[in-house]
């Protein structure tokens, strides 16, 4: 793999850009691999990458039913933050955020990480108390956040209306080192690095079944034939239930649609990410100038990757009160992704009842920010059978009553 650099651009400029290589190869699957990862989204590719990088396991295939990064990796609002309340969550999201900071250099691929800062508005007294608590928890966890006053909110975000009649801004939880990144580039960068290590990234290859012998996974059946494996990682977000069904177990997960939308591009007006959790909308401005807006998830099981009109209305209506200027904006595009929600709104990175089969799912509405950390931890779990970052996120925690209750911590209906 040729490295990308300023020199490479100059070199190619002199030969009509004929020397660029494909970022990753498109091989036909071999008969078997040491490790097969199902799902070539950010999390799956990151898992494969860190298996190779940290543990030298490179006889790996990442198989994907559609195209690379075409699921939730390409459907999110690209926000990266780690201001969670519970210790296990803060640990893995902070690991992830820290990995994002140097990911472009590490992958030699510009993921456009922009640590522009994320602010979560406190718009009720209850929410303010909640964020003051989170601020203190974060201080103990080593996550850098602070609670800021309305005047500072206004200074950072001039377009905000802090005197809303129903939901005045009472302050905000501010994480300065949080931000956004180019979501597709994260998947592409990992895929390129995996391919460079000799791993196979196989697109257009849907899994149709999981084969096991003596309680141990042996192979996956796919639309490109049976692929043998010693270890299997299921990293398929919204379709985890279907894969688990093939592997013979059930999950405490329900799949629902989460949607987002972008406005027409406008001149730069907001250089931070603002989340308003009481009214439940969040917004940032992309490099193209579009306002990227996200809201709540639908409440019922759904695999259609479409959103619903009334949720857009609800989200935008809520944001207009806090950002009056967006009332004149035209919305350009809207899309939906299928997110896998667990009861406590925390992920599952765990062994499964099937020996050799591991699952990484349940990231719900907030998986993008966790991509590097999730891959880092999942790779360790698959290689060593144990990872300090995943200890709390087991599949059995529900039965044992050890919830990592971020749904209550966030105080919103995710």
């Amino acid at each position, binding site marked *: 793999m040729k490295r990308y650099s300023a020199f490479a651009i100059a070199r190619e400029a002199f030969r009509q850009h004929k020397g660029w290589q494909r970022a990753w190869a498109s091989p036909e699957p071999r008969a078997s691999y040491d490790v097969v990862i199902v799902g070539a989204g950010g999390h799956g590719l990151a898992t494969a990458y860190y298996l190779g990088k940290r543990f030298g396991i490179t006889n790996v295939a990442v198989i994907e039913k559609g195209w690379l990064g075409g699921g939730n990796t390409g459907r999110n609002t690209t926000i990266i933050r780690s201001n969670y309340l519970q210790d296990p969550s803060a640990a893995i999201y902070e690991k992830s955020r820290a990995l994002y900071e140097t990911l472009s250099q590490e992958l030699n691929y510009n993921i456009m990480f922009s640590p522009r800062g994320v602010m979560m508005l406190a718009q009720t007294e209850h929410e303010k108390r909640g964020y003051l608590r989170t601020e203190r928890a974060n201080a103990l966890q080593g996550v850098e956040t602070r609670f800021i006053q309305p005047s500072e909110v206004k200074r950072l975000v001039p377009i905000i209306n802090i005197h809303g009649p129903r939901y005045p801004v009472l302050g905000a939880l501010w994480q300065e080192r949080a931000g956004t990144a180019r979501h597709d580039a994260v998947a592409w960068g990992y895929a390129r690095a995996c391919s460079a290590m000799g791993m196979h990234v196989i697109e257009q290859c849907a899994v149709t079944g999981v084969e096991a012998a003596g309680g141990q996974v042996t192979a996956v059946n796919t639309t490109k034939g049976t692929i043998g494996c010693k270890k299997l990682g299921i990293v398929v977000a919204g379709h985890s239930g279907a894969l688990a069904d093939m592997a013979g177990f059930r*999950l405490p997960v329900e799949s629902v649609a989460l949607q987002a939308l972008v406005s027409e591009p406008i001149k730069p007006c907001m250089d931070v990410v603002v989340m308003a959790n009481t009214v439940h909308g969040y917004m940032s401005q992309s490099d193209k100038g579009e306002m990227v807006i996200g809201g709540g998830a639908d409440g019922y099981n759904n695999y259609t990757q479409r959103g619903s009109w*009334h949720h857009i209305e609800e989200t935008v209506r809520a944001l207009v009160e806090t950002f009056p200027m967006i009332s004149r904006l035209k919305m350009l595009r809207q899309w939906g992704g299928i997110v896998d929600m667990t009861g406590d709104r925390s992920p599952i990175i765990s062994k499964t009842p099937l020996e050799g089969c591991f699952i990484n799912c349940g990231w719900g509405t907030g998986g993008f920010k966790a991509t590097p950390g999730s891959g880092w931890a999942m790779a360790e779990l698959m290689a060593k059978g144990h990872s300090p970052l995943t200890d709390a996120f087991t599949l059995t925690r*529900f039965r044992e009553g050890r919830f990592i209750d971020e749904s209550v911590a966030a105080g919103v209906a995710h």
Partner: protein
Amino acid sequence: MLLLTCPCCGVTAEETEFTPGGEAHLKRFGPGSSDEEFDAYMFQRKNPRGVHFERWRHAYGCGKWFIAARCTMTLEVFATYPAQTLEPPAEVIEKIRARRPDWEGAQ
């Protein structure tokens, strides 16, 4: 936008008039059951791609709970029936079979 018909008051309305209540026909395991049974009842869900039986409440109408048979792939609603039904009625199964001949059936 789903259109649902409340079997209690007969009103057909958009989904904003209803609130979803998750998978229907769960068999309750309480005191005396094993950990596995309670875990399965409390947390594990079918979450199917296809026919799904689910609870809804006519929150901004008559306030009653009912059950809907719906496809999670197409959002087609096959039928709705009262909540006081322990398993999908035969005529609902028939309606689903007419639309989904290869459906495996309610498990």
